[in-house]
């Protein structure tokens, strides 16, 4: 349950230097508003509505709702704007309207007395007093915030709504009872927990803002769609789809061929690299082998040479031959002299046969003997290298074989790649060429549609949040719904003199936003009998009742809500009496109820300020309580004089008063209940 709400109750209004309200003897307008009913009577055009507006503007200033909607509930922007060009009152009098034209109003919010003076030409603040102490407010918004705080309402916006559409029942009134959303708005404002109410407002704002954007963008998008040129008739939609499908398939096939080609290319490169490595290795090994073979051959020959007898050995052999008597192996001569000759020749380093110089003269004492082991070592090394070379050669052969295979395969794959590309390009060429702008526009439209679709998802999500917040807050009505239902029933029955059943339900559908569905909100619905229905029938809409019934039921709702809010504190209702369509019976009942709402004697200040036409009806005396049960009208007592304001006496002279007959008629009417 939220904190207690205190509504403003007007105490006094004075207007100075304003041509429409010159007052008695030009001293300006001075209007006290006592407890109970006060009637502001006049004829058409005298300024009744203007006066009610003035009273309202004295409370609200030149502020208005940022977003105006006849449905109070369908407002996402709960802010006020300052109309710097406000000229309502200025426009109703001949120019110029100086700054000396002011209005001062005193009102109470609970126990706090607020006095405010405003300029008539703009309704801007001139001076403010709180509990008789002068207080400055830099802006209208600051003053409005202060009043909201005093009233216990959540914001200056709520204060504005409460005063303008609940307390003031005038020409610009908005439906309350007949709008589930408006009912819900008032309940939220007065009965829901503040935090819950804020949560609901926030969620609603989110939905509304997004809904607005979605609808705007959808509207613009549809317009853009209309701007698209008509599709070319050369290729049907189905043909195009088939072609696109074929292109997609061809792209896939080409992609696969390309991947295969790249894979083969990689294998090809790898093999080439391996081949080069193997070739290099082969060359290197071959070179080593060649070198080693050369060494081996040399060593082998050297070993043979070492193994064979040297020249010395041969000499000894020959000497042995000679010495043994065999003689020279050439000529057969033998002898010591011949042996010496051979030896001399050999020791001289010459061949004893041809006398050419020979190597290895004498023993080769300076040469290191070459062992068989060393030769074998070389031979082993050669064998190893030969084996290695053989292995490399086999590897090269294997690589070459694979390379040949891969190369052959690559040719086939390259051909396949080219073929698939040709096919793909051929298919693409068949597709009708679109000009760049059209394609861009279509793409843009698609993107925008996707964005809108995404926002729609969010919109639904926010709507769900809103529903959840409403559901959560509905329990706040539990404390007041019965009392409110009872009061509304009483007022409605009293107004209409018909059996009325007021049903409270949480099933009324409130549309959250165009594309966000609805939510069940707590509302009151009227069921009543009629001349054609003896049993209580449901009358859900305002279209199902007469105009006057509609107005009074709406008034009954306001009164009931004000009663609940105020309970034991002050309250005020300012209205234009909807008497035009009332017959006298209803008129009396309405007046009676209005007096019941605002009795003169009550513990707390209850006021009802009503305008009424001087049209010969009994509305005014009824409002003033001057008609007895028998229908006789008495005169207004002197000490009750403040309850009746003859606007003809304090406003600018109405043209009707220039007519003598009219003056007489008005005088007669007034004479029925006041001392003229």
């Amino acid at each position: 349950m939220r904190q207690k709400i205190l509504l403003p109750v007007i105490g006094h209004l004075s207007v100075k230097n304003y041509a429409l309200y010159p007052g008695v003897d030009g001293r300006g307008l001075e209007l006290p508003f006592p407890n109970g009913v006060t009637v502001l009577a006049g004829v058409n055009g005298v300024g009744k509505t203007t006066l009610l507006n003035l009273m309202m503007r004295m409370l609200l200033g030149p502020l208005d709702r940022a977003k105006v909607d006849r449905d109070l509930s369908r407002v996402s922007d709960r802010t006020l704007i300052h109309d710097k060009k406000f000229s309502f009152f200025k426009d109703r009098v001949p120019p110029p309207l100086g700054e000396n034209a002011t209005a001062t109003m005193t009102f109470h919010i609970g126990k706090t007395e607020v006095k405010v003076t405003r300029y008539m030409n703009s309704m801007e603040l001139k001076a403010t007093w709180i509990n008789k102490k002068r207080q400055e407010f830099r802006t209208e918004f600051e003053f409005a915030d202060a009043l909201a705080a005093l009233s216990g309402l959540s914001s200056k916006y709520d204060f504005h709504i409460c005063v303008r559409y609940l307390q003031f029942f005038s020409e610009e009134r908005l439906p309350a009872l007949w709008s589930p959303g408006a009912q819900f708005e008032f309940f939220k404002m007065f009965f829901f927990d503040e935090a819950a109410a804020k949560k609901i407002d926030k969620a609603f704002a989110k939905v509304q803002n997004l809904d607005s954007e979605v609808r705007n963008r959808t509207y613009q998008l549809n317009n853009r769609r209309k701007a698209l040129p008509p599709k070319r008739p050369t290729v049907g939609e189905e043909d195009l789809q088939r072609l696109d499908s074929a292109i997609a398939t061809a792209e896939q096939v080409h992609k696969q061929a390309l991947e295969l080609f790249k894979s083969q290319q990689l294998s090809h490169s790898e093999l080439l690299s391996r081949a080069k490595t193997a070739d290099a290795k082969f060359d290197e090994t071959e070179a080593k082998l060649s070198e080693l073979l050369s060494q081996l051959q040399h060593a082998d020959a050297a070993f043979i040479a070492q193994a064979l007898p040297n020249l010395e050995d041969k000499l000894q052999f020959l000497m042995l031959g000679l010495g043994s008597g065999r003689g020279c192996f050439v000529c057969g001569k033998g002898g010591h002299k011949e042996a010496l000759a051979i030896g001399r020749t050999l020791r001289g380093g010459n061949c004893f046969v041809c006398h050419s110089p020979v190597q290895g003269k004498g023993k080769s004492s300076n040469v290191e003997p070459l062992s068989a082991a060393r030769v074998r070592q070389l031979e082993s090394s050669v064998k190893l290298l030969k084996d290695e070379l053989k292995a490399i050669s086999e590897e090269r052969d294997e690589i070459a074989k694979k390379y040949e295979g891969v190369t052959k395969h690559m040719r086939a794959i390259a051909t396949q790649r080219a073929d698939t590309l040709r096919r793909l390009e051929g298919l693409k060429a068949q597709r009708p060429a679109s000009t760049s702008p059209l394609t861009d526009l279509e793409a843009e439209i698609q993107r925008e549609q996707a964005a809108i679709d995404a926002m729609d998802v969010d919109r639904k999500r926010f709507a769900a949040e809103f529903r959840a917040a409403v559901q959560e807050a509905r329990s706040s009505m539990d404390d007041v719904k019965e009392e409110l239902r009872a009061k509304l029933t009483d007022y409605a029955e009293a107004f209409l003199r018909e059996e009325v059943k007021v049903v409270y339900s949480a099933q009324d559908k409130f549309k959250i936003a165009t594309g966000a569905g609805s939510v069940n909100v707590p509302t009151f619905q009227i069921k009543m009998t009629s001349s054609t229905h003896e049993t209580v029938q449901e009358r859900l809409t305002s279209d199902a009742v007469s105009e006057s019934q509609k107005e009074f039921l709406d008034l009954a709702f306001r009164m009931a809500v004000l009663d609940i809010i105020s309970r034991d504190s002050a309250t005020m209702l300012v209205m234009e009496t909807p008497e035009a369509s009332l017959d006298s019976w209803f008129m009396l009942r309405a007046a009676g109820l209005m007096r019941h709402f605002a009795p003169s004697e009550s513990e707390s200040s209850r006021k009802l300020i009503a305008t009424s036409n001087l049209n010969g009806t009994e509305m005014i005396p009824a409002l003033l309580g001057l008609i007895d049960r028998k229908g006789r009208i008495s005169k207004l007592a002197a000490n009750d004089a403040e309850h009746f304001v003859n606007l003809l006496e304090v406003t600018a002279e109405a043209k009707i008063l220039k007519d003598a007959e009219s003056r007489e008629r008005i005088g007669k009417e007034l004479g029925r209940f006041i001392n003229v």
Partner: protein
Amino acid sequence: MSSIGITVSRAEQERLRFIRWVLLLVNAAEASGVGSLQRRQFHSLLFVSFASSRFYGIEPLRQRAQRTEQGPYYRAAHIALGVLTLSGLVDLKDFRPHPSPKDVQFEGTFSATPKGLAVGRRLAETYQGELLYQFLLDLCLGTVSGVLEDKSPADSKASVSLDQVFEEDLTYRQAVARPGNQLFVEESPEDQQTPTLNGLKSIDAFLKQRTHINRKDVLSAYQTLLLRRVA
């Protein structure tokens, strides 16, 4: 590897390798029972060894024989035999010059000496030497088993058979069939698969399917086949 003290020129290397081949062939003939070889037999056997050495994975020496009425004649063999004889590593008997339109050719009978056998053993201490000797020995043993089965090497009939078998060698017959004065085993790398080698491989493949054999057996079988052809 530390540098070898002896410097041997390329030409000298070939000459020394030829000397080894010749010495080991003479030693193998001795060891296998073939015994001494006449000049003609020696040169023919040399030719046959070059034609079949690849069967043992031995690269033959690049030598060409001259075509003579007495069969193939290697001038290098003549020089090698001279060195070996003068060194006392090969024994030379019945030495006499042989009339020839060119070069100096000699007849004689060559056989191994103890010193030559010792040097041969030394030469067989290397892998190449060992393999070469093994091959030449198997060749000679095959000749013995195939040709001189029931004959003595000194037997003139056996001697004639030996000559004929040598001259029946497939590669020899191919070489002889070519025109020109030179008899070569391998003229180019394409000639490495000599008819002798192919024959040996065929015999090897054939016999391996039926029994466990070694290369010596193959050489023997080859010689036997040649003999049958002669017969």
